[in-house]
């Protein structure tokens, strides 16, 4: 210190001319300051860049999926007049529902289209019919079932178009030729352009996407079945994992003797939380399917596997919640003569409940996004029907996304992104609920 005081009068310009060995400590420090400050700024920039990179990834991911997916919520249809010819359909106004279901609406549409647009030759006829979705005949059937009086009149209806038409109308309409995908012929394009000029092609909100099960036809494929399967699976998971998780947490935190056995259970739970999810799929397959004979592809089986997977998460968060209840509460209850069980169930548990619920919601969010173990237990099956209960074959939303992402059609890619948007909004909903719950109910002692 005395050293630097004596050289106080030295200026920096003088010290630069001296040899390094003659530098005093203070001079050394002053010389290095600019370098050290630069290093400081650099280091800070690296940190900011890292945070920024993380955010950027998030933004890119969301915009990419949103830009691909929003179009899935719109569906192209063609405004058409169709004469419901009772003699062709073989129906009367008093026909039963079953008879209407088997009537040849497809033929009716084809006949009408052939008459209106006059394709020449079989190739053109086939091309014309390919523009219409197989779901169109189902639409007319529903219209007739809703109101039998329209038989033998001409109805105006928005007919569902094929996915190729849908993609062209939504994305490539302004291109003179069909460059991006050559799935449409010139004749088909001329029909389509005519319809666009007449203002008959239009997009509507895609209700089918939310009311249909899976389908091989992109324009008919929907996520209703997957959402129902997800809800059923999550219901099983919640009903099993919440009580078991909370009970286990109470035992470990309040009742377990501090011994080697308890320690092993604790280590085991912590390790289980980090086991890859696919291992739980192997477990489900070998134990639940092969030993206990639970049927494959059901929400029951999915729920069992996801329960085992989410249990560690729930136990860990529930224990943290119990730990955060201050000892004064317990002591006050003991002081009034409560038994150990009364203290736990009447006082500690209600106070720890908000924290436990938050942890459970987060565990459920994790289960909602899980795919890999469900692939193992047969939830990848192509299921058209909407599952009714926990023992019907079904699929879940993430697995549906996985299945669709494999399909080559461009329309399926759009639907995959649409399904992802739905999945993400569920997750946002659950996480927001957890955050609000934590803010509202969690007490600071």
């Amino acid at each position, binding site marked *: 210190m005395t050293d630097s005081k004596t050289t106080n009068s030295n200026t920096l310009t003088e010290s630069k001319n001296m040899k390094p060995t003659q530098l005093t400590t203070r001079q050394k420090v002053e010389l290095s300051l600019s370098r050290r400050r630069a290093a400081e700024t650099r280091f800070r920039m690296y940190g900011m860049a890292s945070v920024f990179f993380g955010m950027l990834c998030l933004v890119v991911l969301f915009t990419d999926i949103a830009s691909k997916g929003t179009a899935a919520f719109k569906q192209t249809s063609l405004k058409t007049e169709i004469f419901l010819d009772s003699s062709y359909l073989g129906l009367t106004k008093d026909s039963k529902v079953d008879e209407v279901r088997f009537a040849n609406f497809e033929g009716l549409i084809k006949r009408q289209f052939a008459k209106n647009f006059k394709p020449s030759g079989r190739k053109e006829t086939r091309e014309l019919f390919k523009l219409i979705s197989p779901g169109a005949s189902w639409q007319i059937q529903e219209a007739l079932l809703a109101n039998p009086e329209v038989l033998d009149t001409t109805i105006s209806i928005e007919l569902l178009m094929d996915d190729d038409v849908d993609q062209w109308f939504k994305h490539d309409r302004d291109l003179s030729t069909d460059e991006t995908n050559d799935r449409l012929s010139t004749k088909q394009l001329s029909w389509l352009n005519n319809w666009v000029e007449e203002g008959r092609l239009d997009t509507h909100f895609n209700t089918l996407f939310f009311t249909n099960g899976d389908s091989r036809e992109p324009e008919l494929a929907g996520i209703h079945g997957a959402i129902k399967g997800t809800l059923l699976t999550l219901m099983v998971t919640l009903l099993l994992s919440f009580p078991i998780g909370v009970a286990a947490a109470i035992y470990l935190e309040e009742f377990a003797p501090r011994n080697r056995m308890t320690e092993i259970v604790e280590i085991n739970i912590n390790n289980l939380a980090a086991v890859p999810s696919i291992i739980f799929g192997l477990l489900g397959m070998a134990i639940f399917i092969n030993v206990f004979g639970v049927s494959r592809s059901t929400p029951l089986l999915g729920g069992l596997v996801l329960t085992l997977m989410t249990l560690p998460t729930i136990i860990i968060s529930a224990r943290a919640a119990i730990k955060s209840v201050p000892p004064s509460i317990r002591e006050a209850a003991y002081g009034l003569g409560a038994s150990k069980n009364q203290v736990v169930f009447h006082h500690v548990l209600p106070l720890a409940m908000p924290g436990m619920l938050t942890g459970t919601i987060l565990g459920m969010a994790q289960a909602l996004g899980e795919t890999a173990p469900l692939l193992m237990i047969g939830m990848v099956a192509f299921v058209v029907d909407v599952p009714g209960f926990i023992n019907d074959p079904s699929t879940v939303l993430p697995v549906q996304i*996985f299945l669709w992402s494999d399909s080559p059609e461009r329309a399926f890619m759009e639907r995959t992104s649409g399904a992802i948007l739905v999945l993400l909004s569920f997750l946002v909903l659950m996480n927001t609920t957890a955050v609000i719950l934590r803010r509202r109910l969690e007490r600071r002692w």
Partner: protein
Amino acid sequence: MHSLPDHYGTLMALWTGVPALILLMTWHLLEAPVIDYLLIAQLPAEIQAADSAQIQLAISKVYNLASSSGLTADPSLMPAVEHLAALNERTAILNSGIALSLCLVCFVITYRRIQPKLRARTEMESIVNLLLLSSSGIAVLTTVGILASVLFEAWMFFQQISPIDFLFGTTWSPQVALRADQSGSSGSFGAVPLFAGTLLISLIAMVIAVPIGLMAAIYLSEYASSSVRKYAKPALEVLAGIPTVVYGFFAALTVAPFIRMLGTDLGLEVSSESALAAGLVMGVMIIPFVSSLSDDVINAVPQSMRDGSYGLGATKNETIRQVIIPAALPGIVGAVMLAVSRAIGETMIVAMAAGLAANLTANPLDSVTTVTVQIVTLLVGDQEFDSPKTLAAFALGLVLFLVTLILNFVALKIVQKYREQYD
């Protein structure tokens, strides 16, 4: 009186409900194997004499016949089908009958025990404690179940394929020939290309996640103002909450084509399922994992160490690099190990973005396959349970489980030790 009225009530409810519930559950678990056993006795003698695969086939045929009438049946199976229908009917009646009567018996016994001198609270509490204990036992049972299932199937696999060939062989082509004289695919189970592929992709992910996650954690805990921290930290953690299938979709349809395009522009040959695409996206997924764990350990470094360093004239960055990081190093190593175990076990990103071809390569632009991808491809769909192809998935699962278990165990120990050091 020793107990409150509701203690008596709860005790009654527990004694009436719990034994019957336990009975129903064990019944359901045991029903399928017992029915199978009874059915085998009804099968024609020549099938009974055959091997277990044939018996299994016949049994499933019987189930199909019983559930859907109208199929043309093999007449020799008909006695078994009828027996099954009768059995199903009988078990349903037996099942509910026994459960109900057990309820009733327990109810009567407990009801007669209700006296002022009965220590109902003590008894109820010990039953409740027993239920709590068994709940925490489920976590242990899960581990035992995982080990048992994986070990058993893997042991069956190693009966057919030597473990040496499995662990050190360099050719992976699990397609087993259906007929003995079939040429071509003979089925070889050398898992080295899978391990190499897994390591390559995990390495790429770590190269992204460790520096960025660590720097983000340092910035957020040491530099950022509390308002920035309040929003940036949860925003980063959103990355961890996105389902992996979404990352997989993003990797396969956005990142992989982009890298391929970039590579073609630079004159490089890039596979459409490059390890790079899967690794990059996996790295992004793991960033918040590394950052939140390192954040914890950095925050655990006592303030006095920082103050000491500042007092000696060190800048913030020197303090971080020369005091905080060395002090937090064990914890950071633990965090990285947990992240590695996460990367190794990640399935969906690689299943969608990485390939199936088992190439033994270190070129990140090439297509590689991983342990998890192979488990998925071997097990998705229908499979018979005695072919080495299916069993190989369990052997891979065993390796995966053991490796991640060791990584987690060591990492958790390190983190725990480190926390104790400063507490």
